[in-house]
C-alpha cells in the first residue's frame, strides 16, 4: 500500500461531518498556516512540494500561485474548479462527496496563501447532491469559526461560496468558468490577459482543481519537502486515478506517482486485470481528450522502457508513441471493443460540447463526428481516413481554448494507432456493422 495523502481517512464513517473530520486531524493546516506562517511561506511550501495541477494540464501549482498579480486595493480570488466533466473522470465528485471538509480546508489554507477574502467552488450543475453536501459542510465550518470574519482569531477573513454551473463541459476551461461564474454565457476568453492578471470580475484570480487544492493541507502540515519525496522526478506526490472500462475493479485509486502502468492494470491492489480473462487492447490514460495508446505502447515506451504512471513517462514519445497524464481518467479497453465506435463516441461528445465561438472548433468537431458516424455505420470511403486526419490537424492549435485540441487528439491518435481497424470498417461495412462485430486483426498495430 502506498502513501495515502488524500484518502487516508476517507472511509471513516461520518468523515463528512466536522466533528469526525477534526477528530482525525482535520483543519490542522488552517491553524498552522494562519497562526504560524505568512502567506508567502505557504506559497513557498507549495512551490517546494512540486505539486502539479491535477485538472489535466499538469502546470506546477506553486508557480501558478506566484504569477498572481497583487495590485493594491484590488481583491483577489481563488476559484476551485469542480466542473469535472471529462468523460472517464470521476475522482473529484467522489472526493467531494466523501470528504467535503478536505476540500474546504484546502480552500481556506490556499485562499490565505493567495490573500483572497472571497473564494468560490464552481461545481458542475449535474452534481446537485454534492453541492448540498458541500453547503452543509460549509455551514458547519462557518458555525465553528473556520470561515467568515476573523478565522480562529487570526484576523483573516474568508467567505466561501459554492456556485453550480449549467452542466457544460466548456465551463471547465478556466476562463469560460470565470465567465459562467460572473453570470455570463460560458465562452472561453481570449488570452492574454491571463486570469492571474484579469480573472473573475476583472481581478487577479487563481483557478485550481479540487484535487490540487485538497493536497495543500497535507503539504502545509508535513512540509513541501516531505511531499516532494513522494513520486518520481517532477511528478511528485500522489494522484487520484479514476479507473474505468473493462477491468475487474473499476473505481478511484490514490497512487503514488511512479507506479508502473502494468502493475496498475494487473495488480489486485488496483484495477485487478482485464475482466472476463480477456486481452488488453488499448488504454486512454488521462481522460477522453488525450491520445489513445495500444496495449504494447501503454505498457512499454517506444524505447522499450516500462511506462510509469507519471506525467513524464506517459507523455514519453510525444504524440507519436505517447499520450498524457491528463486528469487521471484511466479508461481500459479489452479486445472485444471497437475503436471506431469509441472514437465516434468521443467525437460526438466534443461536437455536442463545443461552445461555438471560434470557427475551427465549431465547424470541425461536427464535421469529424459526421464522418466518423458514417464510417461506423458502414458508409465510409477510404479517403475519409485521411480526411479525418487532415480535419483534426486543421483544428489543432488554431482555436481559442484547448477544447479544439481535445477534440482533435483522440481522433488523430486512434487513426495513428488503429488505422487497420478503420480500413477494415470501410472495406467490410456489412461485417463491421453486424451486431457484436469485432475487428480481429493484429492488436498492437503501431505505425510509429
Amino acid at each position: 500500500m502506498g502513501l495515502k495523502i488524500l484518502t487516508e481517512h476517507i472511509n471513516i464513517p461520518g468523515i463528512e461531518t466536522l466533528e469526525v473530520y477534526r477528530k482525525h486531524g482535520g483543519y490542522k493546516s488552517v491553524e498552522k498556516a494562519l497562526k504560524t506562517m505568512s502567506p508567502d511561506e505557504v506559497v513557498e511550501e507549495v512551490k517546494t512540494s512540486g505539486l502539479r495541477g491535477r485538472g489535466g494540464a499538469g502546470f506546477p501549482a506553486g508557480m501558478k500561485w506566484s504569477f498572481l498579480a497583487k495590485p493594491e486595493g484590488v481583491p483577489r480570488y481563488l476559484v476551485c474548479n469542480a466542473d469535472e466533466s471529462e468523460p472517464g473522470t470521476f475522482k473529484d465528485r467522489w472526493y467531494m462527496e466523501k470528504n467535503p471538509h478536505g476540500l474546504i480546508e484546502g480552500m481556506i489554507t490556499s485562499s490565505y496563501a493567495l490573500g483572497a477574502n472571497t473564494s468560490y467552488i464552481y461545481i458542475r450543475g449535474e452534481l446537485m447532491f454534492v453541492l448540498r453536501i458541500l453547503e452543509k459542510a460549509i455551514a458547519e465550518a462557518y458555525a465553528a469559526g473556520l470561515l467568515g470574519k476573523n478565522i480562529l482569531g487570526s484576523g483573516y477573513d474568508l467567505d466561501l461560496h459554492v456556485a453550480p454551473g449549467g452542466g457544460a463541459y466548456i465551463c471547465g476551461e478556466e476562463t469560460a468558468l470565470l465567465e459562467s461564474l460572473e453570470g455570463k454565457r460560458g465562452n472561453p476568453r481570449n488570452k492574454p490577459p491571463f486570469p492571474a492578471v484579469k480573472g473573475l470580475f476583472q481581478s487577479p484570480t487563481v483557478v485550481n482543481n479540487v484535487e490540487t487544492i485538497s493536497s495543500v493541507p497535507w503539504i502545509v502540515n508535513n512540509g513541501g519537502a516531505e511531499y516532494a519525496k513522494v513520486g518520481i522526478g517532477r511528478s511528485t506526490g500522489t494522484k487520484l486515478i479514476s479507473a474505468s472500462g473493462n477491468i475487474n475493479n473499476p473505481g478511484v485509486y490514490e497512487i503514488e506517482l511512479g507506479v508502473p502502468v502494468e502493475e496498475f492494470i494487473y495488480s489486485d491492489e488496483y484495477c485487478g486485470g482485464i475482466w472476463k480473462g480477456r486481452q488488453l487492447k488499448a488504454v486512454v490514460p488521462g481522460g477522453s481528450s488525450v491520445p489513445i495508446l495500444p496495449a504494447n505502447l501503454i505498457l512499454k515506451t517506444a524505447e522499450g522502457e516500462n511506462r510509469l504512471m507519471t506525467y513524464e513517462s506517459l507523455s514519453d514519445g510525444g504524440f507519436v508513441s505517447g499520450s498524457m497524464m491528463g486528469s487521471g481518467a484511466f479508461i481500459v479497453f479489452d479486445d472485444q471493443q471497437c475503436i471506431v465506435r469509441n472514437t465516434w463516441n468521443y467525437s460526438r461528445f466534443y461536437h455536442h460540447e463545443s461552445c461555438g465561438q471560434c470557427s475551427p472548433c465549431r465547424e470541425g468537431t461536427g464535421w469529424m463526428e459526421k464522418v466518423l458516424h458514417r464510417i461506423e455505420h458502414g458508409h465510409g470511403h477510404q479517403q475519409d481516413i485521411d480526411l479525418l486526419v487532415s480535419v483534426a490537424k486543421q483544428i489543432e492549435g488554431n482555436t481559442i481554448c484547448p477544447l479544439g485540441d481535445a477534440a482533435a487528439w483522440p481522433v488523430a491518435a486512434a487513426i495513428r494507432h488503429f488505422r487497420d481497424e478503420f480500413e477494415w470498417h470501410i472495406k467490410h461495412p456489412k461485417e463491421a456493422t453486424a451486431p457484436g462485430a469485432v475487428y480481429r486483426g493484429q492488436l498492437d498495430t503501431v505505425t510509429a
Partner: protein
Amino acid sequence: MAKVTIDGIEIEVEDGTTILQAARQIGGKVVPPAMCYYGPLKGSGGKCRVCLVKVTQGSARDTRPMPKLVASCITQVQDGMVVENSTNEDVLNARKSIVEMLLINHPLDCPVCDQAGECSLQDLSYEHGVSATRYEEERRTFNKVDLGPYIQLHMTRCILCYRCVYTADQLTPERVHGVLGRGDAAEIGTYIENMVDNEFSGNVIDVCPVGALTDKTWRFKNRVWFTKPLDAHRDCPTCSGKVTLWTRGEEVLRVTARKDQYNEVEEFICNTCRFDKKETSDWTIEGPRHIDSSSVISANHYELPVLNVPIVPNLPVSTKKNLPQE
C-alpha cells in the same frame, strides 16, 4: 513606441497596438484578413481565426517564437516583435483550413444573396479558399427570421462573428438579440420572437460580414455592382448624417454608413437616415464614393479607368490570371 517587423517590413507603432492594426498601418499584402474583428467595436475579435499569424520572435527581450499561431487582431505588439503573415507557409495553410471550415456550413448562395459583391467571406474565399469542397454531409440550415420591420436574419449564412451582438451592446440602449445554443447549433436569435427596434438597430446590417443580416428595404432590389455609390449628408438630429447612397438613376436604392477599405464604418448612422430617407431630395450629395475594396463592387464602378491600369486593380492574384491579358 514599439518597433515591429511584419513580413520583413519594419514599422514603429504606439504601445498597445495590435498586430493587425500595425499591419494595416503598413497596408497592402501584409494585412491579415479579418472576419470577426471590427475596429469601431470594443472587445470584438479573436473568434473567426482567419487573422492567425506566426510570431517568429516574441520581442527584443524574449526572442523565442510563440509556440502557436496567434490571432493578430487581439495580440498586442511588443518592441522587437517579428511577425510573418503572407510569407509563412503555416499561416497560409491555417488560413486555408479556416476558410474551409467557414464554408462547410455556408449555403454558397451568392447568386441570390444581397451581400454578394461586398461580402467579406466571398473575398476571403476567393483569396484563400479552394474551388472544391471535401464536405459531403448535409449542411446546417435555418429558417429566415424577421427581426422587426427593417432587418431580416438569414442564419444559414451566419459565421457567428458576434459583431452584431457587440453593436447592439455598445450602440443601443438594450440588446434583444444574442447567441443562443452552442457548438454548431449556436445561432443568433431573439429567443422569444422579439423585435429589434431602436434608433440604431440598422447598424447590425453594416457590420455583418456576410449576408446574414440584410436590409429589408433593399432586399432583391438590385445587385450591388450595378448601383452607384455617392457620398451624401443631411442634417440629422440623431446621428452625424454622413452616409453613402447607393443609387440607380435618380432612385436611391439603399443608404449605408461610409465604410473604409476594411469594411469598417466611419460613423454609425441612425435608422431614419438608413431606412426612411430614400429620395435624392432628402440629401445633399457630395460626390462619388470611391470604393476601395477588393470586391467585385469596385469592378464596375463608374470612374473611368486610367489607361494601362488593369480594369480590376485590386482583385486577388488568382482571379487576375483568368482575365484576358492586354
